[in-house]
């Protein structure tokens, strides 16, 4: 037997103190298998040891909640005898190491969580965070993750109906891949994991067990450092084909009355599924590993208990139902084996080849697992973004010299401007004018430049003292200018174009067209809207589903950011007309052993709790992913929220598009112009400071309910929530989705940029038919909701205040092109186009056409524009196009890349 050394303990991610607890629990030294079992069960991923006590703060109850946190997924009543079953989970570390398989198995795992409970998955969502577009790995990771999500979900025949994707350098070395699945079940036929009763068969179904993914849960609970790619063998490999069969087989068996308990084998595989089922059932379990279906030879007990081979399930059946179940799984071509029995011993007993390999009391593995009260650093509230104003300084020097000719005055003024003004630090504009013996010299310093006009003053004074001029008068003037307005002053619509084409706001079509979002033929609203809307098959109702979080808000202020994430999902669901019911979450944070990370975690959870409470919007499932750090640098705190709501009549759904010419645009909610942490300040000024917009939860609820009512009454032709990029971005998205332009008007007295780009919370945009606007505004006023007309749909342009316009087609181009162009440039970037020397061209042509005579002329002398004349016998019998094709082929695809322009003449040799 292997002796347990401190090194082995450390390799299992356990502290010395934890090891001592294991010895105390067993009353002896553990063997290697037992140590492995403790290590996965006590990993952060399985035990929630740093987060448990804080997660208790989240509200989890409501009349419609059938099952809250603690099961494979949450369950809520959605009417008509049906239930929605849903959960979100992370697969961050595996996806960074091996993006395709990491993302694919993340999707496979979350779908298993849902169908384990007896629900047919009907929708997949995801929340993805990648590094900046400049980081060399980002493209590779985006391509792999998107293909992996699509590859698994598409094969399963479950539509991926939406999600969100952000890019920020804070995720360069630690991407986030959070996947959510929603399923539908009959509400009285939900399956749970508590294996009550002794003497019942424990059954293994699905794929066979291999050596893949051993210790995945432990990996998910550790920081990354150099060499994390070497952990690739701990990433599981997915087989969606087998999972599809497993889904159908499980649902077929669930239609009968054979199952006592069922649990999917996800993280920590056989270990965690057997321990959780037995511990929840209050009994014990005995496994005989000789019976486990194996795909490799010579696996030992340690490998089998810790394997994370995918597409497996563990069930406890009613005695006597084994053959009925076996027939179903064998029909679907899946492994089926009775591998153990439930007991009343309160212990996990593992036998292999007739030897007891592990014998562990269940209590310490489950309920009595470590539960840490980690130190939490005090949180400082960020200062609001100081008014983003800057000081502009101007000077006007008036030189008078009656009697001097205009030419003399001009010479004087020019000399002063050239010698003195030009030497002022930060001068932005300068000039002079001449009139009736006076020269006026004007200078302006760039905004924010602290310099003064002393050199100009000195020079003018000197001219007067030496008698060159009669009098010199210098006026200086200072003015505070709104930075936002000043930059926007040239054109707010130019700023809109920049935002709509920025990595965080440009169209995600390239991503979601790789996901089958219409399979199952129930997708009412697919990707690209606010919440997705999926009809409940065979009914008129629909589920609204969304995932949201704004990590930059959470980073600046965890409490407000946590509130905001919940509120934004609420808002997205309301914007379709649906009633929000409950959330799941995936809480992605750094290393909890650092008090400042715990401060982020606790702050965000408390903010979420306040929002859930105020909105009557409980948490029914969730997942915590800690240690999202690389070399000690943590990601921005990212508590992704997945919200689910119900729309009773799917035909009444509101969409982002749908506005018609003549419809009026109504802004709902209060716009103060909150620029702190706005995308506008980040993308246009590189500023990521200030406090995020606060969320007034009472207003959030009031506004959402009022908007839903208007949608139900048919008073809105389109609706969109206002979030990243503020009113102007939301309005532009509605215009693009509707195919109608907009005439927009800034309210009197509003600071223009702040009004249009501020990210105040609790707001919506509605499109109302002309006759309906007054009614809608009246109803909103009566509900105590502020709202006003800000524009009208129609035409092919977005016009702002009559002086600024951008064509819809131009905006659509700006919006749609960046992501595909970025993803395409993968290889182009690596082979930076270099001008091609003439000799190289000759060489390539001769390589393909050895007999040819080649004359080359460099037309522009830049190594980029050539004329070539090629004579070859190979051209005989070919027309000119075919002759040219031969030459182009000889250049091996360099035309248009390295070689920009080639005027070609060809002739067949005699």
């Amino acid at each position: 037997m292997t002796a347990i050394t401190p090194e082995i303990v450390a390799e299992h991610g356990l502290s010395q103190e934890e090891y001592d607890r294991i010895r105390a629990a067993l009353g002896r030294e553990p063997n290697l298998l037992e140590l492995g079992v403790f290590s996965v069960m006590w990993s952060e991923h399985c035990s929630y040891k740093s987060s448990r006590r804080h997660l208790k703060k989240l509200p989890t109850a409501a009349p419609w909640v059938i099952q809250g946190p603690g099961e494979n997924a949450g369950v809520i009543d959605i009417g008509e005898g049906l239930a929605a079953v849903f959960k979100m989970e992370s697969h961050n570390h595996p996806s960074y190491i091996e993006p395709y398989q990491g993302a694919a198995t993340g999707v496979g795992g979350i779908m298993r969580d849902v169908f384990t409970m007896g629900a047919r998955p009907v929708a997949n969502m995801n929340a993805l965070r990648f590094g900046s577009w400049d980081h060399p790995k980002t493209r590779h990771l985006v391509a792999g993750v998107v293909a992996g999500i699509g590859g698994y979900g598409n094969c399963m025949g479950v539509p991926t109906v939406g999600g969100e994707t952000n890019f920020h350098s804070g995720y360069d070395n630690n991407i986030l891949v959070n996947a959510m699945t929603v399923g539908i079940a009959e509400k009285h036929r939900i399956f749970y994991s508590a294996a009550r009763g002794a003497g019942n068969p424990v059954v293994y179904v699905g794929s066979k067990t291999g050596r893949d993914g051993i210790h995945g849960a432990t990996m998910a609970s550790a920081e990354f450092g150099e060499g994390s790619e070497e952990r690739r063998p701990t990433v599981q490999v997915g087989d969606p084909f087998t999972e599809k069969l497993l889904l159908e087989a499980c649902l077929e068996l669930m239609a009968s009355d054979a199952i006592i308990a069922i649990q999917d084998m996800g993280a920590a595989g056989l270990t965690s599924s057997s321990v959780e089922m037995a511990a929840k059932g209050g009994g014990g379990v005995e496994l005989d590993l000789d019976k486990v279906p194996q795909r490799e030879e010579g696996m030992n007990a340690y490998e089998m208990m810790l394997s994370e081979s995918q597409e497996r399930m563990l069930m406890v059946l009613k005695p006597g139902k084994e053959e009925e179940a076996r027939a179903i799984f064998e029909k679907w071509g899946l492994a089926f084996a009775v591998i153990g029995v439930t007991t009343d011993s309160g212990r996990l007993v593992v036998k292999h080849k007739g030897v007891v390999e592990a014998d562990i009391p269940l209590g310490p593995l489950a309920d009595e697992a470590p539960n840490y009260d980690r130190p939490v650093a005090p949180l400082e509230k960020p200062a609001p973004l100081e008014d983003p104003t800057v000081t502009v300084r101007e000077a006007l020097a008036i030189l008078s010299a009656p009697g001097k000719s205009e030419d003399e005055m001009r010479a004087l003024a020019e000399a002063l401007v050239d010698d003195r003004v030009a030497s002022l630090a930060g001068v932005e504009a300068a000039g002079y004018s001449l009139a009736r013996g006076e020269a006026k010299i004007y200078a302006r310093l760039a905004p924010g430049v602290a310099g003064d006009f002393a050199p100009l003053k000195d020079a003018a004074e000197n001219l007067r003292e030496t008698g060159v001029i009669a009098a010199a008068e210098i006026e200086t003037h200072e003015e505070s200018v709104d930075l936002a307005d000043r930059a926007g002053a040239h054109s707010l619509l130019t700023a809109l174009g920049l935002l709509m084409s920025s990595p965080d706001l440009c169209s995600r079509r390239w991503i979601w067209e790789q996901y089958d979002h219409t399979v199952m033929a129930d997708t009412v609203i697919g990707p690209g809207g606010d919440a997705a809307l999926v009809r409940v098959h065979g009914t008129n109702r629909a589920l609204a589903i969304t995932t949201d979080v704004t990590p930059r808000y959470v980073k600046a202020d965890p409490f407000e950011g946590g509130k905001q994430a919940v509120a934004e999902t609420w808002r997205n669901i309301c914007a379709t007309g649906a009633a929000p019911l409950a959330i799941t979450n995936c809480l992605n944070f750094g290393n909890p052993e650092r008090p400042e990370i715990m401060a982020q975690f606790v702050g965000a959870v408390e903010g979420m709790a306040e929002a859930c409470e105020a909105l009557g919007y409980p948490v029914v499932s969730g997942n915590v992913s800690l240690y999202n750090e690389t070399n000690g640098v943590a990601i921005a705190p990212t508590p992704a929220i997945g919200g689910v709501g119900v729309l009773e009549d799917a035909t009444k759904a509101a969409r982002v598009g749908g506005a018609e010419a003549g419809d009026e645009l109504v802004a709902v909610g209060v716009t103060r112009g909150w620029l702190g942490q706005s995308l506008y300040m980040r993308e246009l000024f590189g500023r990521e400071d200030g406090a995020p917009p606060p969320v007034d939860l009472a207003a959030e609820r009031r506004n959402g309910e009022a908007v839903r009512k208007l949608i139900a009454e048919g008073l809105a032709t389109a609706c969109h929530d206002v979030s990243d990029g503020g009113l102007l971005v939301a309005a532009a998205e509605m215009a693009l989705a509707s195919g109608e332009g907009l005439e927009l008007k800034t309210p009197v007295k509003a600071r223009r940029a702040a009004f249009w780009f501020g990210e105040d919370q609790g707001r919506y945009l509605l499109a109302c038919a002309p006759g309906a606007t007054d009614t809608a505004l009246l109803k909103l006023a009566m509900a105590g909701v502020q709202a006003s007309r800000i524009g009208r749909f129609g035409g092919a342009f977005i016009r702002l205040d009559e002086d600024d316009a951008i064509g819809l087609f131009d905006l659509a181009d700006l919006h749609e092109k960046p992501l595909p162009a970025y993803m395409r440039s993968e290889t182009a970037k690596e082979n930076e186009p270099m001008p091609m020397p003439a000799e190289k061209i000759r060489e390539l042509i001769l390589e393909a056409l050895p007999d040819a005579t080649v004359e080359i002329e460099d037309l522009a002398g830049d190594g980029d524009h050539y004329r070539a004349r090629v004579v070859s016998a190979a051209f005989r019998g070919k027309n000119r196009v075919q002759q040219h094709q031969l030459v182009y082929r000889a250049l091996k695809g360099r035309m248009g890349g390295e070689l920009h322009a080639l005027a070609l003449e060809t002739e067949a040799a005699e």
Partner: protein
Amino acid sequence: MKPSVIVFPASNCDRDAAAALEMATGKKPRMVWHGDSELPDTDFIVLPGGFSYGDYLRAGAMAARSPIMRAVVEKARDGTPVLGICNGFQILCEAGLLPGALLRNAGLDFVCRTVALRVENSQSLFTSGFAQGQYVNFPVAHHDGNYFADAETLNRLEGEGRVAFRYVDNPNGSARDIAGVLNEAGNVLGMMPHPERAISPLLGGVDGAAFFRGLLEAA
């Protein structure tokens, strides 16, 4: 009409096809297991979309060799209408009921979007719900929809009016924009787009409903 839908391992549009047939005929179609070697009494067979056998080896290659396909081929040769959608089209090509093959999309990525199609032959029993040259919108969702055949075959298909649908804006690189082809006798249609996903205005269109109603009238 007595339609049936074949269910292969990892078919995933079988329910959608059944729902569309039920909408058109008012009856639930028979669902037939791939492992069976005999068909029930049927006068219309649908091979639905999906990833039969995980698309392992080649899309449709393994399904084309499953026991039920021998019966389907026989029925098709006897003149029973057979409709293959998406993976079903791939299976029909692999089974030799239709010429050509479906290669990986030219863009190499999976593509899911609603595309416009032109009805090239409204005389077939599958397309009688449409006018010649009519434009219709159906969703596509596939990774291997790039129709390929040699020039001679393509010329023959076009010459004999066996191109049922053409893409207006080709999403996958298919030769001559071909989206759906008929067999020589006109009783077998393979198409990549999914009419069964366009049977309700709520779900993005009704052109699929017209397609299925046309089948009923023709049958």
